[in-house]
């Protein structure tokens, strides 16, 4: 189960929907696996505003992954400056984090120019880092959902429905 998916899920119990405690679900005894995936720059750009950044940071912390910046990257930080596009002011293109790494992959180059390291890092966290085995625990009711072979089970026993 990818960390992106986890960012879109919360406790299945109706009683937990109205509280902020239920989100994000906290991983327990999680066994991580890196599954390589092709970069989909357009998808990452579109999905970024829909990600709950704070929840993603908490999750990375819980899992012992490298710390994420306090705020989600700006869309302009995802693509390298495109010299043919003067509409983007150059001060918007200053990238946080590392420079000059992993460039030169032709894939996914669109109108926006080459994907930056910021985008690749996001891709790695959201789409390549997966929970293979473990439990997801609701911070409100404490119910634990099992993840087996990367598939989470959100079915509830009848007394919790």
């Amino acid at each position, binding site marked *: *189960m*990818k960390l*992106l*998916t986890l*960012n*879109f*899920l*919360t*406790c*299945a*119990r*109706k009683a937990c*929907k109205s509280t902020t405690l239920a*989100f994000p679900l906290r991983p327990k005894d999680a066994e991580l696996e890196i599954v390589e*995936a*092709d*970069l*989909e720059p*357009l*998808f990452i*750009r*579109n*999905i970024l505003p*829909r990600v*709950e950044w704070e929840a993603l940071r908490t999750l990375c912390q819980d899992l012992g992954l490298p710390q994420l910046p306090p705020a989600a990257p700006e869309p302009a930080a995802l693509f390298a400056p495109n010299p043919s596009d003067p509409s983007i002011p150059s001060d918007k293109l200053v990238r946080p984090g590392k420079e000059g790494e992993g460039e030169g992959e032709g894939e996914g180059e669109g109108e926006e120019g080459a994907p930056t390291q910021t985008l690749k890092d996001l891709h790695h966290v959201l*789409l390549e880092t997966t929970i293979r085995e473990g439990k997801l625990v609701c911070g409100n009711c404490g119910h*634990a*959902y099992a993840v087996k*072979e*990367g*598939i*989470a*089970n*959100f*079915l*509830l*026993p*009848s*007394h*919790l*429905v």
Partner: protein
Amino acid sequence: MPQYLVRLAQTHESFRKAELEALAELAGIDIRFDFYDEDSPFCILALPSPTAAAILIHRSILSLSIHELWAQGTDYATLHASNHAASSIFWPHYATSSFRFTLDSYRGSRSTATQRTIIDSFSYMPLNGRIKMSNPDLSLTIFEDFATGSHEPRALYLGRLLSLSGRIAKTTYDLKKRAYISTTSMDAELALVTANVALAAPGKLFYDPFSGTGGFMVAGAHFGASVWGSDIDGRSIRGKGGKAKKDVVSNMVQYGLTSRYLDGFIADLTNSPIRGARGPGEDAARGGWLDGIMCDPPYGVREGLKVLGLKRDPGENRERLACVDRYMEEGYIPPKRPYSFEAMLEDILQFAAVMLVVGGRLSMWMPTANEEAENGEEQKELSIPMHPALGLVSVCVQPFNKWSRRLLTYRRLSPDEISPEALSAMVSHKKRAHGNGQNADDLNDFRRKYFQGFKEPET
């Protein structure tokens, strides 16, 4: 706007127009239907340019190709006259191009000799280039449309080939060649059409709440969308087989779509873990974060229509239920109860209204008994479930013998399109008692009729 001829597949007729309209919307192309008939595989569109025409058709499943319309007529005399009048301006441009002529007769056939005579009758066109049967610069097709049983065509067209469609995907994704399918997997052609009508495209996020073996996810990913799905039946997601395991993931591997497949998880739509699925309250006026939803919900005939919960209310024995102390055990399977089909449709619409982005689409399959549909338009309209935050975009029908299924497509309306009165009326409308303790037949009209052979019970 210039006219173009679309050569349609003569199948799933009621889906064809909906597909073309959806593709035009997706590509932001102005489209006008100048001629369209369910009984004809030829459709004339007015479009801004040949480039727009090629873009429009390149991912269409229910058309074969698009052509620049050079001439049309009701017999060869009028076709030639029209050719002289309308297309002679094109001729000089192709004076030295390699070219070929082909004849496409619908519901009729011509002997090789006659074909040759017909093609030779165009020899007045000043085409001096080489004849080349494969990949010529100019590919002209003479289309003949015969009425059933007639020996003379009722309509004729001449067109220059601009682009072939994406119909080849129908063969690529054929279920017969797919590793992991089940009895209720959606036919590849219709799954792809569903993805087209739902506007699946690169960068978008699509979800299927009844994913099964993942047919819609495969179709959505084929068109570039990132997809995820859930199912109440974990077996369908986990797949089967030991070493050579077949599951949704292996299907994605088979088609090289793994990077667009996000995840499958086990969940029940009525107790969905999806963030925001219940909204703050039941406020459907809030925009969501899904770009599209495609689904074929269970009809309760070949697969059970169930949700989480107990069939009978345990009453005072509630605390003595086995689940209370056993549910954390390995291999515990939560009990499920039958659910009403109508209630499920309501739930899907409510889910879509809350979760879709403005303009996002819900494409959902729904079965109907044919006699119901034949009781006149009014009745037909009534049986289509509606939601104040969703506008009906298209209704496509796939008829079977005694029943048919429909592909209903809705668009999430923008807040200023939604009538606040209708929304508050819906929220206050108390949900019907989708009761406990009722059997599947009571809850599902369609199922009952299906097993009664669609006959009215004798009274």
